[in-house]
């Protein structure tokens, strides 16, 4: 089955997924995704008329908690894994408003 995944599709998806791909990777992913998507396309042959999507296998509902404050992390540990911080906030390259 041809799925028609082209390098422009790969690049578009990579942009959404925030991945920077080398030319070689793009080429490889065109092949691999075509193969995988081609395999996955067999699902389109299943008759799913009147079948509701299953988004939870378990019949659990209403997992709710009461509105009670629990102590937050000390700031030091909130920031402890940050690649860059200034003791108060996380630092990232400029966010343009």
């Amino acid at each position, binding site marked *: 089955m041809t799925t028609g995944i082209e390098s422009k599709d790969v690049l*578009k998806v990579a*942009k*959404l997924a*925030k991945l920077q791909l080398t030319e070689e990777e793009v080429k490889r992913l065109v092949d691999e995704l075509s193969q995988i998507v081609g395999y996955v396309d067999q699902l389109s042959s299943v008759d799913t008329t009147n079948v509701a999507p299953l*988004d*939870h296998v*378990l019949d*659990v*509902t*209403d*997992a*709710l*908690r*009461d*509105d*009670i*404050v*629990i102590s*937050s*992390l000390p*700031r030091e540990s*909130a*920031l402890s894994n940050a690649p*860059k911080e*200034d003791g*108060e*906030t*996380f*630092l*990232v*390259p*400029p*966010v*343009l*408003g």
Partner: protein
Amino acid sequence: MSSVDYQLVVGLEVHVQLKTLTKLFCGCSTTFGAAPNTQTCPVCLGHPGTLPVLNREAIRLAIRTGLALNSTIPPTTKWDRKNYFYPDLPKGYQISQFDQPICQGGELKLPGDETSSPRTIRITRAHLEEDAGKSMHDESSGSADSRIDLNRTGTPLLEIVSEPDIRSAEEAKQYLTELKLLLTYLQVSDCNMQEGSLRVDANVNLHLQRGDELVATPIVEIKNLNSFRAVERALVYEAQRQREVFEDTGQRIGEAPKQTRGWDDNLQVTKVQREKEESSDYRYFPDPDLVPIMLPESWVTELKSDLGALPAALRERLKTEFGLSQYDADVIVNQGPDMVAYFEAVASNLKDAKRASNWIQQDVMRTLNDMEYSLADFSIKADDLAKLLQLIEAGELDNSRGRDVYQWLLDHPGTPEEGMKALGIASVGSDDLLDLCKQLIGEHPSAVSDFKAGKKQALGAMIGAARKLNPNANPGKVKDLLSQLISHED
């Protein structure tokens, strides 16, 4: 453009921070103004392996709002992920509601005023979602980096989406005012725009008549509207701009992609926001970490019976039970439920409710405004004001001396009677009053003869003189007695 030949068409998306103690999916406090990143935990920091657990109170407040907006509350609601990257969104997705919002449909009735008649704006939906954090960029700090504070991340938001039923900037403001009032009455939100607990986006376009054809311009979303005034001004600006762009390009809806523009409050213009092509593909899908929420009818019914009196009903009550005008009822109801309760407590002790309305609008509201007080901090309780107005009603005081007592009450603890005593406003006895009037008649022969000749206003000078002789003498009583005495002189 001499006359307006287009129709402005506006739909508003209002993000309301719900007044819960804790965040939507974790137990961190939602208190505003804490030091950066001191109200976070592994869940709202988006740490790997963390899971959301829904706050029951957020559901309750959302249903309350929906019921007040006449929305349908469905039997179940569910959660979806909206995927996008932003440094103030630590999970890389926002938990929101895509196709099964907690409030479906609805309406908000605008009461109308002297210049506009009542209207109904339809509500499309209202859904719950988690707020993002804050990114701050200070060019002057010398650092190239933006600073990220995640205290706000995960605060519950209710996004209330209207149909494009709004037809003018003024009407947009009325909608927001009425919505804010309703939310205040419901006690679901602080609605504080400075603190960001109420935020507005507007979807705007124009309908123009071109010959037989009604033409629509491309829809523009305006963000960054930080006050009702900004909403009004941005809409006025945007209408003009779209009109001009249409004249230039002739582009109609569907012929240009939906644009997002930001309102620049300094320059008073909307500016196009850099919109990346892919950023609109949010890849919504059901959040596997959260299970569906059942909203049983019994719960919804219970919440409905617990709504309390809402603005529209209160306006009616003030009009029918207290005989207030539409205008007066609006002014009092717009002050919020505390003021309505205050008014009702005062007015129900008086013969004339209008007197309570006047005093509250002219004196109480001015004091609150000047002193930046809320009614809760206000020292003159409803009982005291009622007593004061009763004294005026009984003729023990005139309005002017009444205001002196009012001022005294603001400055001192005590009752109106104690205030009168302290100010020396003893009631003037009838013998004293008779002596005073006789003295006045003796000292103002020309005024007396003018009055006899039919010049009723001639008494004014004598009343003014009476105030100097005895400031406690009630001018009304002086006037009545003077005219009695002069008429009986012959």
